[in-house]
């Protein structure tokens, strides 16, 4: 199992565990019908069972596979830009909650184009400004969506 799959399954396990825990407080059902807790509770249990099944299957495959066929690990260098973009996006969204959507979005776009796509800074700035202008014209001026 790749580290990213472990992260995915662990995240899903925590998610379903939290819903299972909260679902315990909900009415499960009555004589007439099922309550609001019926589906979340049962599906959370099934989800946890499926995650356990996938983990057990991966463990069994690892034990039975010869050492030469071990699953290759992931390159941290390849994953790092993704993590950096996610952190940048999170910072931009936080900044958006303080007021303007377009300003943090513009900064994010320039950084994406310059630092991650490898374009010269001036070109990144120009292209991002042009795209933002089109977005502003469509969403803000035409559709009256308050982006600023």
């Amino acid at each position, binding site marked *: 199992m790749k580290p990213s799959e472990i992260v995915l399954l662990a995240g899903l396990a925590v998610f379903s565990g939290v819903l299972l825990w*909260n679902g315990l407080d909900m009415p499960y059902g009555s004589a*007439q019908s099922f309550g609001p807790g019926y*589906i979340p509770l049962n599906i959370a249990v099934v989800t946890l069972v499926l995650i356990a099944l996938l983990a057990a299957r991966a463990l069994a495959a690892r034990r039975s596979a010869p050492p030469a066929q071990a699953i290759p690990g992931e390159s941290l260098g390849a994953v790092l830009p993704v993590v950096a973009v996610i952190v940048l996006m999170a910072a931009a969204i936080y900044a958006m909650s303080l007021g303007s959507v377009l300003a943090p979005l513009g900064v994010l776009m320039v950084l994406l184009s310059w630092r991650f796509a490898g374009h010269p800074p001036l070109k990144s700035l120009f292209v991002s400004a042009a795209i933002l202008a089109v977005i502003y014209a469509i969403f803000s001026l035409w*559709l009256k969506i308050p982006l600023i």
Partner: protein
Amino acid sequence: MLDALTHLAGGFAEVLTVYNIVLIFFAGMIGTVVGALPGLGPSAGIALMLPLTFGMPHASGLCLLTGVYMGTMYGGRITSILINTPGDAPAIVTAMEGYPMMRRGQGGLALGLSAVSSFVGGFFGLLVLIFFAPVVSSYAIYLGAPEYFLLMLLGLSTIILLAGEDLVKALLMACVGVLVSTFGSDYISGHIRFAFTPELIEGIDFVAIIIGLYGLGEVFYNLEQRTRLDLGRPSFNLREYIPPASTLKESSGATLRGSVIGTVIGILPGAGATVATFLEYALERRISRKPEEFGNGAIAGLAGPEASNNASVPGSLIPLITLGIPGSGGTAIMLGALIMFGLQPGPLLMIKSGDVVWAMIAGLVLANVFLLFSNVLLIPVFVNLLRSVQGHLASVVVALCVVGAFSLAYNSFNIWVALVFGILGYLMKKCDYPTGPFILAVVLAPLAENYFRQSIMLGQGDWSIFVDRPISLGIIVAMVATGILGLVTKRFIKSRKPAARA
């Protein structure tokens, strides 16, 4: 039937004025642009145009609104194919097959083919609307909660076909989809489930989920893989965008099947178009001689669901016009418009205000024809726009996703949702977990849950309600028969293969 033709001719007589023709043409174009924007779908398009209809003649106003509605259905496929960001649920299947075609440099062809299929689907749906609306709607009223639940279950059963190679992974993602759909108010009891923040009281917006899962997930994945698109230089050679006769012939069967399924299932309230596109996709995959092509840009996998999607528009108008029941957000706003115009939606609408309704249907026929031509002509514009920004595609997609998610409720909460599901989409793609079962569960599970609980309440706790009613029993029999037939066919093919090899 002759009656319908006479009424339709009357409708055309009312609609065929320069003013109305120009209005319908622009309505279709505006709908296409709005539908192409992530986060905005038919409801937003119709709602945006509603104020413009004040003071218009009723027929013109309704033509404007239905033209926008039809246009958004055409537009929804553009971002699905070009940047893998579906704007609504029915466009997800389009992204599953259209985006791989775009990556192979066949984005123009995919858009052209989907425009033709959309036209055929829309046209078929309109024929049914014109000739059989009262008949179809008279059957629709016999469907109750048990039948709707079973139909949702039928839609959910396509998870098996969307599963790919690992059924356990598909089931896991379907379960996660069901859990995600349980957030927010429970419509049966009024209980608020998992509202960890006040924004979650209304649940998680489905559009924010697909924007993140497909749009942002793809950006993150391409960033890791250092994918560089090479779509060539901008070109206006129309032959690149109009599907050749061989492709049209290859897709004709799927388009016709999609049209029938889209019209019939599109009548269902709630998720008619979504169920129709997934069922059609599953059907095409099952009957295909090359099922391995599905997911990699299969012609039938693109054409069939696109036809279903557009056929469902007239389909969803059938219960609205004949019974006054809106089946989707878009038709709910249309219902409001009908009331605003002083019309009384319901069984008497066709009798009391038949002239306006038939003018609207004639307007839809015109809009469908205009949309085919305008969309084929717009394809080079969209494809060349993409080509000119292909080096900056990551930042363009991120910008559209952020603005699209923001537009849903004018706050940053949905952008956070899109980011979270973007991370999930990235991890799922990286680890080969299918997105189809997840998204299908998110859309259909809440409807299935509500119908299921309503059915049990209706039966006073007795499960036999599903077999006591003839239509629901018929659906169960059809489902079991399809399952058995599928298994038998699979075994038969398996047994033939070794024999053929020997």
